[in-house]
């Protein structure tokens, strides 16, 4: 197996309240230590996308800040290509392509080309290579036709693409994308994710991407890190996650409401079956029980069954369940 490019090991970040002298300069709302990350570990290999998922305050942005050298860990380590991110060496920074959540980070009064040329200069890309690289990158993210358009005149989707182009211009090995599709419409998001997936494979990038939109995470078909209040709730691939947590939902349609109510009573009394809801003549249950066994339970009422549908639980529901249970455990 290829060595991971990104390695995070037991990462912990605690934001402490400001000391007294600092409060003379600026007041903050932090009055007691805030644990932003608590023993988080992850590895991302070339050509792999890891989706970082979690509610607001889960620690996603702090993790990205540690990786980009914008803040330092309290304990644990984060390395990229075996270089500690606390070093902020130029080689390390050149190996990272970062796109923050904030769209204003592009120069809105300047054209796409000017934005990329500026970034190229700061990255130290030789002048003779700049024009070719900029044109090439704009083409790859689908902005070739909008090279001379200013930031203000771009749609949210196009701005997101420009930020992606900026993150990739200096040919990094690692791509860190903080909510890249935050304000982009579903079609735009889909297209952007397709570009990211394609470039990840082509350039063998190690990608960390955070998103609140779980349909997108599902579309990436790769590994996931679920964070909640700085703690790791799940780490692994999506299929294992489903296998570990998912119980299929089965919707059974009866000939009438009375029959549905009677079947509900039977199912509620059955171990290993959870009745999610009964609506009219339909009963929805969640169970790991094989279909045949479930129908045996309803043996006396099989004649009343009109339809049986098995549906997969949505990722959103799955993750919400996991976060809820984790919260219960913490309480």
């Amino acid at each position: 197996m290829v060595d991971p490019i990104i390695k995070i090991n037991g990462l912990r970040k605690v934001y402490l309240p400001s000391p007294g002298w600092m409060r003379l300069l600026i007041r903050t709302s932090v009055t007691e230590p805030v644990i932003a990350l608590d023993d988080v570990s992850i590895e991302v290999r070339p050509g792999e996308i890891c989706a970082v998922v979690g509610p607001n305050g889960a620690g996603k942005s702090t993790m990205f800040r540690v990786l980009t050298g914008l803040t330092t860990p309290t304990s644990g380590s984060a390395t990229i290509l075996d270089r500690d991110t606390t070093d902020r060496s130029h080689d390390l920074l050149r190996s990272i392509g970062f796109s923050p959540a904030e769209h204003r980070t592009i120069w809105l009064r300047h054209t796409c080309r000017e934005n990329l040329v500026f970034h190229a200069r700061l990255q130290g890309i030789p002048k003779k290579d700049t024009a070719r690289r900029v044109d090439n990158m704009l083409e790859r993210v689908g902005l070739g036709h909008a090279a001379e358009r200013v930031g203000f005149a771009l749609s949210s989707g196009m701005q997101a693409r420009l930020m992606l182009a900026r993150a990739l211009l200096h040919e990094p090995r690692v791509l860190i994308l903080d909510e890249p599709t935050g304000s982009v419409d579903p079609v735009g998001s889909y297209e952007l994710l397709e570009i990211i997936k394609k470039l990840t494979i082509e350039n063998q990038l190690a990608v960390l991407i955070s998103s609140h939109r779980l349909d997108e995470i599902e579309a990436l078909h790769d590994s996931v890190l679920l964070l909640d209040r700085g703690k790791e709730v799940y780490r692994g691939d999506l299929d294992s996650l489903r296998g570990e947590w998912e119980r299929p939902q089965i919707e059974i349609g009866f000939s009438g409401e009375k029959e549905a109510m009677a079947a509900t009573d039977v199912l509620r009394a059955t171990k290993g079956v959870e009745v999610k809801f009964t609506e009219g003549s339909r009963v929805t249950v969640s169970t790991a029980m094989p279909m045949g066994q479930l129908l045996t339970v309803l043996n006396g009422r099989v004649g009343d069954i009109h339809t049986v549908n098995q549906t997969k639980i949505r990722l959103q529901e799955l993750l919400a369940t996991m976060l809820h249970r984790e919260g219960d455990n913490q309480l």
Partner: protein
Amino acid sequence: MRLPLGRGAIRRGLQISGAFVRMDARDTLNYPLALGMQQLGAIVPVVTFLFVSKLVNRNGPDVAGDYYTFVAIGIIGMRLLSAGLESFSSQLLRTINQGRLEMLLVEPIRWTMLPFTMVQWNMVLAFATSITVLLASLALGAHYNWAGVLGAILVAVLGMAASMGVGVLNASVKVLAKRADPILTVYSLAATILSGVFYPIDTLPSFLRNLSWVIPHTYVLQALRRALMPAGETLPGPSFWVAFFALLAFCLVIYPIALFFFSRSMEYGRKTGVLSGY
């Protein structure tokens, strides 16, 4: 802390400065009315002091025989020095407010290089504005010794560099305090009163007069007047070259101190996670 010195660092600094100048220049030119009003606003003090000079009617040796030219040079000098003082802090605040600081800090640039590379356009603009003010004062009756222009440019550049040093020191507080400019506020107040922009420092009480020579602004104005005023050599106080070397010494002292504190502030902000906040 590593100082941004050496041939490679200078080449890199020029590359980064060029990138900022290009973007900032475009930004400025995108707002032509604002630029025009700024130039117009810069002329107002020299117009005001034309009338004040008539009222004062003071043309003694302490103002090299021409109060209006004396004060016009003071105004031009003060404008250049203010640009040096304030540019980095204002650029830093603008970058934070526009949400671009984090993006800038993940670029492979030494943080100690930022104070020099982010402000070049402001310096160019300050020079251009100073020329506008100089031409306006000339039209209003000021007299200049054109032979001293090169010396004046030399000392103006050195003076701006010295002011930038104080500006960097101020920015090391600003990085953490975000809005406050304590060093800048105190220094600017002191400089306005003590450096003799509008009056010869001999007018000040003796204890304040001694303090005047602690501030680089006083040396800059002294050297500018000696270089640009037709009877500048007759002005009391240090010669052009004494003022020049005093400024040079100030730069050599202030930069290591200012960059040390700026670097420490950035590291502290990084550790506590407050760099991009506002």
